[in-house]
């Protein structure tokens, strides 16, 4: 085996170690960062409020497609009343958190990476260090927390809009009985399903925000380096979200079956 092929697993382990250490550095600085809530609030606005339109639009379309798909599938068995169940469970447990995280990685994650990367390439982070200000505390932690807080809120928004979209198609357009639609949904969904969605969106929030700030902070300080870091944020976040989604889904299924 060549040295390059041997070094790949080593490089991967090194990277995981580096990201973990960075997370520890972030967690250690959270108490100090909480003393400046204004910085965190502005990052919640940047990561959350500015992603709201794309999240709402996507939620509506996903919900409408679920309505169409559900109607198509269930009418074959004469069980159109179950459209709401598919839409609710699909959105709450999987599509809401996963699609929000993927959209969040593309919209807010890339913005975080490129912003921090540009600050690095224009020596703003070094300037902070020279002014005896810790850039992880001042720049990284508020952005990480902003993403972590915004992500579940966006996922909740996505899910609510998607449920509305599914209902719009299933009930308003395809003519499923409204009472049957909602009563089947109410019977099928329990609190564990909601809880699963919340946990997933929290975990995805940490994962995407961490990848975004890590890649920005460790970007090669050149225009090309920042571009590559931004691309890595999208690729790594997306794969990580899908992998974590599988693991969490399996874990919740096992827990529910116990």
């Amino acid at each position, binding site marked *: 085996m060549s040295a390059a092929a041997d070094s790949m697993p080593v490089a991967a382990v090194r990277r995981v170690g580096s990201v973990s250490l960075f997370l520890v550095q972030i967690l250690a600085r959270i108490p100090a960062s909480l003393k400046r809530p204004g910085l965190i609030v502005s990052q919640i606005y940047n990561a959350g409020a500015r992603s709201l339109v794309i999240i709402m639009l996507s939620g509506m379309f996903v919900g409408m497609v679920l309505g169409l798909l559900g109607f198509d599938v269930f009418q074959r068995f004469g069980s159109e009343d179950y459209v709401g169940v598919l839409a609710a469970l699909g959105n709450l447990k999987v599509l809401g958190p996963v699609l929000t995280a993927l959209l969040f990685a593309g919209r807010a994650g890339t913005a975080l990476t490129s912003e921090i990367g*540009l*600050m690095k390439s*224009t*020596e*703003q982070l*070094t*300037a*902070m*260090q*020279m*002014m*005896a*200000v*810790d850039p992880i505390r*001042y720049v990284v932690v508020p952005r990480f927390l902003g993403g972590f807080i915004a992500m579940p809120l966006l996922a909740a928004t996505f899910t609510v809009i998607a449920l509305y979209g599914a209902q719009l198609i299933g009930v308003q357009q395809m003519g499923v009985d409204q009472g049957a639609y909602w009563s089947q949904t109410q019977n099928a969904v329990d609190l564990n399903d909601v809880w699963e969605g919340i946990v997933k969106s929290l975990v995805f929030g940490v994962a995407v925000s961490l990848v975004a700030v890590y890649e920005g902070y460790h970007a090669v300080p050149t225009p090309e380096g920042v571009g590559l870091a931004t691309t890595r944020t999208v690729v790594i976040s997306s794969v990580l979200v899908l992998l974590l989604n599988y693991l969490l889904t399996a874990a919740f299924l096992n827990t529910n079956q116990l």
Partner: protein
Amino acid sequence: MCYAVGGRKIFDGLDITARRGRITAFMGPSGTGKTTLLRLITGQVTAERGSVRVFGDEVSTMSGGELFALRRRMGMLFQNGALLTDLDVYENVAFPVREHTKLPEPLVRQLVLTKLHAVGLRGAARLMPSELSGGMARRVALARAIVMDPEILIYDEPFVGLDPISMGVICRLIKQMNEALGITSIVVSHDVHELGSIAHDSYLLSGGRVVASGTPEELARSELAEVKQFMGGLADGPVPFHYPASTYEDELLGQAGDSK
């Protein structure tokens, strides 16, 4: 002091001193490690061997907290200003004050406006960094660098990319800061004439060592080939015009042969 990156020696046996209350200039061709020298002085990187002492304390053995304490006694002007792009001019200058003190707002305001007035940009307080010219950005950065009244002020290539007027302004400000506030100044640049007009002591670096040192006048009179090439701006000399390559004839004839 010795310093190497990836096995390549940047400094080998470098021995320099910047004296208190004076303007010391470090000059040298591009790629000699002038900026690296500043990174060593400020503890951003550590020397491989030898010693870097600031205020008599060894920088390489300092903990993170000690290093931050040291940096609070220093100010640094970066090549491009390195202003925080999401803050306006006023907030940029106020940034170190807000981070390190709990001064009431009227006092912060007074402090910031005083420093901005000193660099002639009190009227630009509410402009964003993107609205400033290169020279203005550097003056704002200078105001920010002096707002905590540092004992040492470090300038990294302060004249790069400036028009003659801005260059003159920065030159005058460096001299003023030194004379009025008694700040020890370390200037890294390759602008021989500007440095000559303000520096008390000069070092010419090349190939990882000090080639010559003394007052700017002494350097100008030096007969050393390296010094003459640098001070005279000669294209060829100890620093060759041509990047190392095979002979011109061999290369051309080889190409002709290849094309057949």
